[in-house]
């Protein structure tokens, strides 16, 4: 973003402070505790992923950082300023999960409107609009009404509108929801360009691949809590060490399969037996044992554990349950 227009903010911010500090944040909606004592810090230029299933509390956490949710307890500071304060608002760009754009305005008109809401005008505004259109690859469709754009283009416009004032911290709440694979790749490229420019990003998703591809560190969120927070490699290592995972499917009596998997301390997920092994040589021992139990191997794969495995290991549930 070095070629981007001047940052639109007037309020004093402490840029020596961390971009984001969340301290024991709690938010309840009636009987439901959406955020249950979350604390986290983010470094400048870092892309922090919030990975968790739907309803884990990711969006509530994002909205609390954006100042749109008043926490029951705890604090959120954006570059040292309280969330929701004018200084925090100016430093922060929010890309909500919903398509929060004006359908009857063109792409350019949408960007201009949101730019004005942040106090931009004149040449800085036009420069910011041009930058956003270029970033979102919407230059060719700049005059098109938002409602006439394709789903992927609307998503990109939705993202660009959150960056019109060139914020230093960007919150992206599941920006690829409902987007086809081709458009998703385009969005990834946009985010990678943003990362390369040094922008600090918080990225929520329930797609493990997105978190792995885009994020420096990943916070695994479940039931309103962060159950693990580290780099992907560190998270995997913490859960699995140097072990690998074996996935095998067999023909045979289901009861025999269940009994055999339990005997070998494995896990049965969707008729697939999962085992964690330290050395590949352990595979031969497993297969001999299966054969002795009357099970015939159909297929087998060996892989390094991923974030999905980590989530399953930590919660006992699949990420997309």
């Amino acid at each position, binding site marked *: 973003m070095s070629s981007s227009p001047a940052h639109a903010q007037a309020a004093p911010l402490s840029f020596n402070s961390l971009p984001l500090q969340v301290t024991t944040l709690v938010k309840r*909606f009636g009987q439901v505790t959406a955020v249950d004592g979350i604390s986290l810090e983010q470094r400048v230029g870092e892309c922090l992923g919030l990975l968790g299933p739907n309803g884990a509390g990711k969006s509530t956490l994002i*909205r609390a950082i*954006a*100042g*749109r*949710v*008043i926490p029951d307890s705890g604090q959120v500071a954006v570059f040292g300023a309280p969330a929701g304060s*004018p200084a925090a*608002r*100016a430093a*922060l760009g*929010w890309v*909500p*999960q*919903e*398509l*929060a*754009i*004006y*359908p009857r305005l063109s792409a350019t008109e949408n960007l201009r409107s*949101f730019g004005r*809401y*942040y*106090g931009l005008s004149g040449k800085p505004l036009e420069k910011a609009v041009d930058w956003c259109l270029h970033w979102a690859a919407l230059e060719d469709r700049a005059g098109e009404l938002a409602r006439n754009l394709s789903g992927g283009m609307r998503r990109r416009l939705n993202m660009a*509108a*959150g960056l019109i*004032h060139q914020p230093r911290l960007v919150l992206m709440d599941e920006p690829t929801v409902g987007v086809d694979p081709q458009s998703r790749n385009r969005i990834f490229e946009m985010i990678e360009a943003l990362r390369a420019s040094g922008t600090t990003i918080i990225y929520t998703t329930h797609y493990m691949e997105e978190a792995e591809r885009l994020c420096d560190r990943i916070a695994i969120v479940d039931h309103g809590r962060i159950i693990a927070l580290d780099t992907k490699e560190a998270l995997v290592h913490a859960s699995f060490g140097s072990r690998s995972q074996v996935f095998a499917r067999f023909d045979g009596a289901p009861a025999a399969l269940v009994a055999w998997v339990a005997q070998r301390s494995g896990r049965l997920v969707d008729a697939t037996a999962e085992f964690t092994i330290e050395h590949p040589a352990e595979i031969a021992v497993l297969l001999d044992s299966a054969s002795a139990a009357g099970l015939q191997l159909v297929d087998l794969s060996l892989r390094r554990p991923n974030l999905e495995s980590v989530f399953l290991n930590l919660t006992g549930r699949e990420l997309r349950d």
Partner: protein
Amino acid sequence: MLIFPIVRTALVALRRDRPSLALSFILPIAFFSIFAVIFGGRHDSQSKISVILVDQDRSQASIQLSQALQREEALTVTTHPSSKPKQAHPPDYTAATAEDAVKAGDAPVALIIPRGWGVNPIAFNSAAGQSGPALQLLNDQSDTIAPQMVAGLLQKTAMTAMPLTMAEQGMKYAAQYIGGFTPAQRALMDSNMARLRQLEAQQASAASSNSTNPSAAGSSAAAGGLIAVQLRPVMGKNTHDMISFYAAAIGVMFLLFTASGSSGALLDEAESGTIDRVLSSRITMTSLLAGKLVFNTLLAFTQLTVMFLWAWSVFHLDFFSHIPGFVVMGLCTALAVAAFGLLLASLCHTRAQLGALSTLIILVMSSIGGSMFPRFLMPPAMQKAGLFTINAWAIDGFTKVFWRDLPVSALWPQVGVLLAAAIVLFLVARRIARRWEYA
């Protein structure tokens, strides 16, 4: 035929669609009730007609007529303006001040009893110059019913309230046209007249209400108008200018619909999350609502302007002579209407709710506020209820400007009420909009 499943599905869908249910049942009942109260013969609460009375004659006949008119249940007769803080006992109306009062809309009709009327109150053979000066009925043409009612009641009141005068006048005309009475007839008549005088004196002392004594002059003449009444419109306007009434009446109703529809954009923006995003910028809820208020005000004012320009170009309304008054009333009305729309939108959660609620409230407001039929047709209680609507104040203001030619300074009651309403409605809408502000 599988008809029942279709009926059943539609029934379930309707039951879940509360706005449609409300429109289906509440709106017709509300409207039926309003029309029933206005036109359904609720005589006990029928509207009274205000009449300003100026008795220049001060004769026995004029005093009798004045007193009888004041006893008339269908009329509210006033002889002087209502007292003000600085003037506890304002002087009686004169012919000139009564005319001004009618022009200002204080009353739809003024009755002037001219000097010398009591000498010869019956208009019998007025063409031959044998009757005295006629009663003057000054009227405001915007109310077409009041002068007719008052003229009719005048004839009836004269017949019943002044039997002695009527009898004397009758005998005078009889003697003139049949060549006099015999002494015996004269004696009998004098005796009867004496009895009549005695009866009148008793009635006056008892201060009873309407006399039911049969009139000596005969009732058949009443319809023809034994009392000469000269009807004189005082506005000096052509009927084209009444177009302003309809432009304001219809205009305000549609302005209310437009404003509520336009404010509904708030609900769309809340649903799409756009409000959340806007409020995460430098825009606050107050500035967001104020922006919507300004936009809706300008939209409503433009609508009114187009409507009045149309009335000027097609119906020859004298628009360009009334620009200052129009601008003042137009802006105040537009502001109040815009604030009202914001309040409705802030009360609702969905467009469907807003559609149902606004239809219900706006149609009821428009009917009791004078957008559908003039308020002077309504019973007093409903006229008072109409004062709680934007329609009534807006229509009154535009009527003052275009019909009564009053200066902008005379609009202060309407301007004050509409501005106060706008402020209150906006503040309430702002308070309710807190639900969009934070979770």
